[in-house]
């Protein structure tokens, strides 16, 4: 898909940023088209707000450039950039009333009084706050303050409006109303909106384009439909909407095996007998009392009414847990049959199939890796100082409550339930990522000891 350079308003090229040792943005490349509503979506700490602050000019990048209309704006201080921001907690000036807050930017530009008056009135009308000109901003409700914050930014007629989680402080009902208003405002004004949020539902509702970020990297860029229906990896699948994510094997084109059954699917080109991740949305699993017509069967474990639909967990005969949404309720304990249509099965390439660490031999049975010492089985043909590659399957990493029992430790940073086990990402204090399959239940941010049995390491020498 080729884009006409004239249609691009912001072009972010190779942006990286670290705070101390922590990399918050890792070689970000992204272009934003004129007039689009683009959302940076991700969990807290993924780098989305840092990216927005760089566009606004509050932060400088360690490397890379940001082009606005083809010109590098990196050296430009924030007050000279033709962009305006709506801040998370509004950041209205408490010592000024509504009118003076909105007129702030125009007054600085020495705009004639009549014009200021005209533009302030117009923009207040746009955000439906016409009667509030003389009000003290502290006396306004959260939603009203939000409107003023938007008006204060829009009155300057920015080329791009940056919004940093503007609805996060509002209650649910207000948030829904404001989403609709923002969308309408965007359509009416035709300017580019760059929106930051951690709320996937909000992103799906508002955006033309969603950029999913995690740990300083872009995971996927696409329309809300693309992102929801065809997540590129298990992170995106898990983050956007509810999903069943399980390990599977691509048997051949259009045939995939998971939860102990073979299914027809529509994916091709993965190769034969390749391990994959499989995603099925809970609303895409058909559930019925008829066991004979089903592809697989199980027992209903829980059934919760969610307003429009029921959400059920079913344990299959093979012992996998699947989440299903349906308009009908199936009684807890009843036997049910299930069906999945080929088009509803989303197959994703696995990013990795086992842990790979680099290490250095300390002796023939000691190894230095992950900034710690590990025992290994005596290695023939390897001597002290040899650089090696160590492979450890996900399931062979042993997490311990007692930190002393591990060779090193780390904190659980990401948890994915895969139907019959958990897939964890554990990050060591030095920043190494370790991927673990386990049946034990851990919580996010738990600190765990990491033990690896010598027999489970596959060590190969790296030849220079």
């Amino acid at each position: 898909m080729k884009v006409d350079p004239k249609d691009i308003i912001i072009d972010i090229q190779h942006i990286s940023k670290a705070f101390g040792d922590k990399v918050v943005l890792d070689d970000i490349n992204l272009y934003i088209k004129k007039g689009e509503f683009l959302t940076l979506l991700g969990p807290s700490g993924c780098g989305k707000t840092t990216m927005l602050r760089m566009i606004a000019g509050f932060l400088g990048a360690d490397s890379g450039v940001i082009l606005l209309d083809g010109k590098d704006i990196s050296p430009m201080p924030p007050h000279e950039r033709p962009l305006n921001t709506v801040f998370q907690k509004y950041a209205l000036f408490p010592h000024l009333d509504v009118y003076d807050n909105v007129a702030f930017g125009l007054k600085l530009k020495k705009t004639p009084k009549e014009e200021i008056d005209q533009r302030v009135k117009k923009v207040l009308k746009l955000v439906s706050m016409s009667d509030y000109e003389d009000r003290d901003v502290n006396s306004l409700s959260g939603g009203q303050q939000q409107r003023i914050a938007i008006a204060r930014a829009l009155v300057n007629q920015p080329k791009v409006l940056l919004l940093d989680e503007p609805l996060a402080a509002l209650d649910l009902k207000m948030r829904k109303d404001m989403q609709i208003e923002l969308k309408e405002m965007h359509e009416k004004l035709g300017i580019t909106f760059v929106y930051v949020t951690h709320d996937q539902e909000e992103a799906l509702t508002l955006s033309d384009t969603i950029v999913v970020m995690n740990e300083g990297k872009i995971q996927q860029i696409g329309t809300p439909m693309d992102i929801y229906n065809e997540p590129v990896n298990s992170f995106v699948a898990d983050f956007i909407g509810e999903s069943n994510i399980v390990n599977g094997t691509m048997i051949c084109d259009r045939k995939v095996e998971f939860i102990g059954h073979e299914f027809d699917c529509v994916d091709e080109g993965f190769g034969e007998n390749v391990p994959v991740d499989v995603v099925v949305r809970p609303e895409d699993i058909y559930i019925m009392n008829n066991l004979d017509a089903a592809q697989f069967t199980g027992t209903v474990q829980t059934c919760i009414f969610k307003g429009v639909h029921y959400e059920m967990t079913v344990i299959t005969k093979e012992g996998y847990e699947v989440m299903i949404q349906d308009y009908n309720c199936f009684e807890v304990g009843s036997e049910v049959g299930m069906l999945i249509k080929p088009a509803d099965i989303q197959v994703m390439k696995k990013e990795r199939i086992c842990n790979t660490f680099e290490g250095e031999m300390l002796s023939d049975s000691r190894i230095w890796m992950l900034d710690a010492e590990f025992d290994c089985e005596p290695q023939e043909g390897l001597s002290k100082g040899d650089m090696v590659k160590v492979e450890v399957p996900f399931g062979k990493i042993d997490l311990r409550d007692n930190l002393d029992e591990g060779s090193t430790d780390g904190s659980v940073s990401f948890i994915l339930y895969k139907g019959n086990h958990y897939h964890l990402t554990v990050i060591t204090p030095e920043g190494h990522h370790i991927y673990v399959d386990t049946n034990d239940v851990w919580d996010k941010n738990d600190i765990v000891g990491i033990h690896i049995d010598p027999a489970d390491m596959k060590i190969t020498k790296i030849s220079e």
Partner: protein
Amino acid sequence: MMKKILAKSYLGLVLVLLYAPIAFIAIYSFTTAKSLGNWTGFSLDLYSSLFTGGRAADVSSHETLSALIAALNNTLLIAFIASLASTFLGTLAAIGIFNMKGRWKAAVQFTNNIPLLNPDIITGVSLFLLFVFLHFSRGYLTVILAHITFCTPYVVLNVLPKLSQMNPNIYEAALDLGATPMQALRKVMIPQLRPGMISGFILAFTMSLDDFAVTYFTAGSSGLDTLSTYIYADARKGGLTPELRPLMTIIFLIILAVLLFVNLRNFKKNKSLTI
């Protein structure tokens, strides 16, 4: 009920003790006797003597009174200049400290606390040695510098909380709307910090008024007197200039009025005393 009466009478007793000397001074400001305890009939002579520099009533010599008036003027002038300078320096410093990180921040905050923790005499002696060491002749300038030294920490401590209460994006919002850093400071930061700056200024001003030890050591033999050093000299001579009685009474009433005003307004808001 019993408990309440007991508590009230205890408070009353302590209050009486606490205010007895001040009340005593105030009462004896309405008589012309040289020494206290010796009531020579009601008279406003001390007040008129104080306000006219000795011309209206013949209590103390003209020289004594002009020295007293000069000391009063010096006290007010030094307090004003020092607290103004402290407010400026301290506000800038508070903004800087607030945006610092780690070891530097801790070090600057620690140093800022030194003049608060040090007894006056240490501050006075150390500054005395500094001016001696630098061959700085002592007088107005040294006293003002010394007062800025122990006043600024109060301003810093009053402005810092205002900074942490402030929405961290406010400064950036101003930049975002086209303000230069200087404009953002003037139009957005300062108005937000103003309450802290004002209470810092008032605190600095009273600390300066109250000071004796630091002034004593940094004024040297320049003949510069503030009220404190004047009273000290009086005490060494063995008696209080009678006109000090009405002066003390007036000062006390002013402070009482100001503090009552400030606190009654504030107390409703945050349930704590502004001191």
